[in-house]
């Protein structure tokens, strides 16, 4: 069993950065493509929630990861400022390391998300106000940059043959889907809290419907990618097959993974979403959902996303190549 060189700060970072990037991407795509009436005129409001949420997890996650740096920890212990700010070295160079590219992309993403959020800041922000052009331009950049941050968290872990559990081509895709789904869940969560009875009924339901439906689709894809991730590792011989056993029945992380991530983090919220979405989709019935259900779905998807990062980060470090 390996030592856990990367612990809670990295787990929290992978989750928060993914969620922030996901919320930003979702917000931008809703802003750019949602004006067609699907959101019952609510697309701007959803985009606004996404834009306002995004910088917070992005910055909090980045702040967390600094705590994992050896130099920062020693710097705190010894009050040594040169060590505390040693991470600046990340931005003195740019090389082909996934962490180097990721740091720059993440830095850009944070700055962009702040400006993008600023265009939405006013309570009177409207789709056709003076910021419109800037906001739309930023949204076009937000989508690729948000996806880049989400994918890179998977590449960061996946780049190493020495960590067979992580060394999978599909990990980046898994993290991207999870980022988008947790981004949607974050928006849904906030949206549910701000549901007021004064809201136009149909409109509100339209927005909730689209959010829940897209989250269910994303979770469906995520389950598919998890299936592929496990199957291909399991069907290989050697290191990947040995490593994946840690989350298969009998493995030390199996319960956490199957019950925590798959059942409560993905399957149950997706089923609840489908239960509410399908009547409207199939029978054109109105979309009705209680506030606490929306809050619970959001919380479960977010919790599942965090647990997924936990299981993957730990599993990669307690397994290794076999033989010497």
């Amino acid at each position, binding site marked *: 069993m390996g030592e856990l060189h990367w612990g809670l700060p990295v787990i929290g970072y992978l989750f928060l950065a993914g969620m922030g990037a996901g919320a930003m991407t979702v917000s931008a795509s809703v802003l750019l493509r949602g004006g067609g009436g699907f959101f019952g005129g609510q697309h701007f409001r959803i985009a606004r929630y996404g834009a306002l949420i995004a910088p917070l997890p992005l910055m909090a996650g980045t702040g967390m990861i600094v705590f994992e740096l*050896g130099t920062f920890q*020693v710097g705190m212990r010894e009050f040594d400022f040169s060590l505390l700010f040693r991470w600046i070295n990340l931005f003195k*160079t740019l090389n082909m390391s996934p962490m180097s590219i990721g740091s720059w992309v993440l830095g850009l993403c944070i700055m962009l998300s702040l400006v993008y959020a600023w265009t939405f800041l006013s309570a009177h922000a409207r789709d056709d106000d003076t910021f419109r052009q800037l906001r739309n331009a930023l949204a076009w950049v937000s989508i690729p940059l948000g996806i880049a941050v989400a994918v890179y968290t998977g590449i960061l872990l996946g780049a*190493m*043959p020495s960590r067979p559990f992580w060394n999978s081509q599909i990990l980046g895709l898994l993290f991207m889907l999870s980022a988008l789904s947790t981004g949607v869940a974050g928006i849904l969560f906030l949206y549910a809290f701000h549901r007021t009875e004064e809201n136009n009924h149909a409109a509100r339901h339209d927005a909730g419907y689209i959010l829940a439906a897209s989250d269910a689709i994303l979770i469906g894809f995520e389950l598919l990618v998890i299936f592929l991730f496990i199957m291909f590792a399991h069907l290989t011989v050697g290191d990947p097959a040995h490593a994946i056993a840690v989350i298969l029945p009998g493995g030390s992380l199996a319960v956490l993974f199957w019950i925590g991530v798959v059942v409560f983090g993905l399957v149950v919220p997706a089923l609840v979403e489908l239960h509410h979405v399908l009547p409207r989709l199939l029978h054109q019935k109105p979309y009705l959902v209680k506030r606490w259900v929306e809050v619970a779905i959001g919380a479960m998807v977010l919790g599942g996303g965090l647990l997924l990062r936990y299981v993957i980060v730990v599993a990669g470090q307690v397994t290794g190549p076999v033989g010497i």
Partner: protein
Amino acid sequence: MSNPQPSTSRRAFVKSVAAGAAAAVGAGVTPGPVQAAVRAVQYAMVIDTRRCIGCHACSVACKAEFDVPLGETRSWVEYVEKGEYPNVSRHFLPRLCNHCSNPQCVNVCPTGATYKRAEDGIVVVDADVCIGCKYCIQACPYDVRYLHPDRGTVDKCDFCLHRVSQGLVPSCVNTCQGRARIFGDMNDPDSEVAKILATNPVTVLRQGMGTEPNVYYIAADHSDERDRRFDNHYVRVTTHRRAEERR
């Protein structure tokens, strides 16, 4: 060796080939390998495990040489025990950084703190640049890196660069009483390592990782207790490290 610097430019290559061809024409013979013109120094170590008695003198010399903190190791000796009485064996496997030719640690380092020296192929960590992100610890398939608890930066074997640059051999090599560790420039055909490499069957650790290690073993026992092939055999590996299991 007059020119130990590697040159990868096309012009240098063309020149060296042209020189070789000219020499061949001049001498009226077919050209031999055009070696010397572009040959870098690559320090390497051969560990002849048949000569290792598991005394840990190298581990101790290394700890003393670098004041390695308690609980951490730059170089260590593993014991591999196998079999049921009376068919049993015990082998020793001295370990250190492999100064790989395709070092994963270098590929992932975001700051450039870890790099492979062009002049001698030694992989080093610049402790003034390293931020302690531990990416390289994750990426090294041999688990030879550790976070220095007092500095917060990563540390590992550097083939005793301070000694080697003065023409001495690394401290572990110097102290090995069985002469199990042999050190030198493997690209110099007259060096002892080059001769041993040419005349012995050698292996490297975890060849499948693609890191192209420059530490070679003679008669190493590659058994691992986690290898399922050995499920029905007694295999025990003692690492003599804080991390009691191999990663």
